[in-house]
């Protein structure tokens, strides 16, 4: 196949003519200016417009809120990252809660795929922040909080720090230095799964989670 590579590149190189100099910056697209004080509100409004749920947690302790949200939905098996940043809070929150069991994602998917697909009611993850302009949560899944957590279970709880909500994706990429350190998988999640493929009418929970519950902490 390197033959194909050489031939394709050779054909592309045949073309004479001036290319814009390397590193020419395109005209700046207008940036949304969302003052920091309005970011949470904008973030929330966009998410709620697409049927995501947003709760602002009291500063001191998100545990009661989490317990309530989980109990309201009758969640019995809640997936979490045992080595993730939320682990201590979660373990404390659900210690001694009868109806809900915390299930750690602590083995490779191959060993417990059936359980993940058919036996987990919800998952809870941390995040790398959010984007106000589009109501997006930034997720960088890793070994502690793997990718399928935010995808397979029908309900996804995600914790977003208010101070990490950026105005735009462009700002988030710059501040968080994406280009220098892309993970295996980086994600923007902007609502529960949906489709309008039938009669252009929106239906939710098509393949990904049917519910996205965002908990914003100060």
């Amino acid at each position, binding site marked *: *196949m390197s033959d*194909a590579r050489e*031939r*394709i*590149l050779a*054909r*592309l*190189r045949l073309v004479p003519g001036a290319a*814009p100099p390397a590193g*020419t910056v*395109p*005209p*700046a*697209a*207008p940036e949304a200016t969302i003052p920091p004080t309005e970011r949470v509100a904008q973030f929330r409004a*966009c998410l709620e417009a697409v049927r995501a749920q947003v709760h602002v947690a009291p500063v001191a302790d998100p545990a009661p809120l989490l317990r309530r949200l989980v109990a309201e939905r009758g969640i019995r098996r809640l997936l979490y990252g045992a080595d993730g940043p939320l682990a201590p809070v979660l373990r404390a929150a659900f210690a001694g809660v009868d109806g809900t069991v915390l299930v750690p*994602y*602590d*083995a*490779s*998917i191959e060993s417990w*795929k059936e359980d993940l*697909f058919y036996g987990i009611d919800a998952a809870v993850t941390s995040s790398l922040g959010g984007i106000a*302009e589009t109501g*997006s949560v930034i997720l960088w899944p*890793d*070994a502690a909080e*793997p*990718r*399928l957590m935010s995808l*397979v279970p029908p309900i996804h709880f995600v914790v977003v720090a208010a101070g990490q909500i950026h105005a*735009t*994706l*462009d700002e988030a990429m710059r501040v968080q230095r*994406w*280009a220098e350190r*892309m993970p*295996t*998988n*980086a*994600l*923007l*999640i*902007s*609502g529960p*799964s*949906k*489709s309008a*493929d*039938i*009669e*252009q*009418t929106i*239906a*939710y*929970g*098509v*393949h*990904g*989670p049917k519910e996205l519950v965002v908990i914003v902490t100060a």
Partner: protein
Amino acid sequence: MASRSDFGRRVELALGSTAKRANIARAMYGLQHKRLAAFPDRAALESLRDAGEAIKRRALARLPELLEQLEASCRRNGIEVHWAETVEDANRIVLTILRGQGARSLIKGKSMVSEEMELNRALEHEGIEALESDLGEFIIQLAGEGPSHIIAPAVHKSRHEVSALFGRMFPDLPRREDIEGLCATAREILRRKFFAADAGLSGANFLVAETGTIVLVENEGNGRLCTTAPGVHIAVTGIEKLVERMADIPPLLKLLTRSATGQPITTYVNFISGPRKTAEKDGPREVHLVLLDNGRSRMYEDPELRDSLRCIRCGACMNHCPVYVRLGGHAYGTVYPGPIGTVLEPQRTGLDRLGELTEASTLCGACGEVCPVRIPLPKLINRLRFDAVRTDGGPTSGSGRRRTGREALIWQVWARVHRSPRVYRLWLALATRLRRLAPRRIAGWSDARELPRPAARSLHALARERGFCDE
């Protein structure tokens, strides 16, 4: 492939399908409104389009260099890069990867390039099941049809048709008539497939050379499932999907989702930069990127036609095309329909086979007006009309092959009359004086309209009479 009469017959069929036309028109007018609502500030929109055009122009200007950079970045990340000149090459590559895995099934996210490849047919021929997971693609796969729109493949179907289809294909499942119920049915069926699939396939909305990243947008979550659950992920895409830097993504993403469906962003935007790392617990163990040429490098050679490679596959052009609105995608008989299809497909397959598509346009300009990266679609359609009849051997495949003696003669006579002021005025005098002999019917025109007769006096004559002439 389409011959002249084939296209004409498909047009007739499409125009006669009242229900389908209604479905498509409702959807397209809806998408037009949504796009308009997504871009409330005209000046900001134009500025954004400028940025999108500049980013894609710059990337295309440096395409060979950036492709090499992409390959190096991907390799560093552990993504294996393959190059395919033709769709046969691409299918062969995919088959080799799948056989190497012992894979018997492939679950697919939405990929128009895989339609170019006719991948499903190639795999089924080798005993490998190719399953569509995007809801619209899933529906039409069950129906044995091709997509009629690049973003909304089942736009021509009503819910009742979908319900009947599911009822036929899955008689054991409870029959639902409502849209939410139909989606729930699809979710249940496809969940089992995601679970069991040996390999997953996706396209790519953008490729970032700087970081070796595949960017995918979607609303359903099936794309993520295809690229995360199975042990192997294969991404197939065209070589022109490249951008230089990660910072190029935000403006293009904005343009893409708003132009396509009026959404500020899709539910998921997926940045894939490599296979599962050692400590990670899920994700594919292998990621392959297949870069397909299939005529793109040839389009690249012509500086005017190269503009068509800027396309980010948003579908806005076809959403706004008055011809597409009335025909739907199937009438075109091509992978890509609508205005962008009219520009790309004859270049790829030859003007001799698909040149008639360039006639199916009034050059109204609605497409060019909404293209997020300012592809001058009407200009390119006109350029292909020229290529189709030119005598000097143009660069496009099939150049000159649509020229007929009859039409060439018509234009030669027309030119003879109109380039000589005296012959033209003579023609006017005759046509006006002998107006009663003018034809009462002209084929095509008179099927739908009355035909005006020449005036009694031409404007030339009247102007002279009223003193408006040259000094």
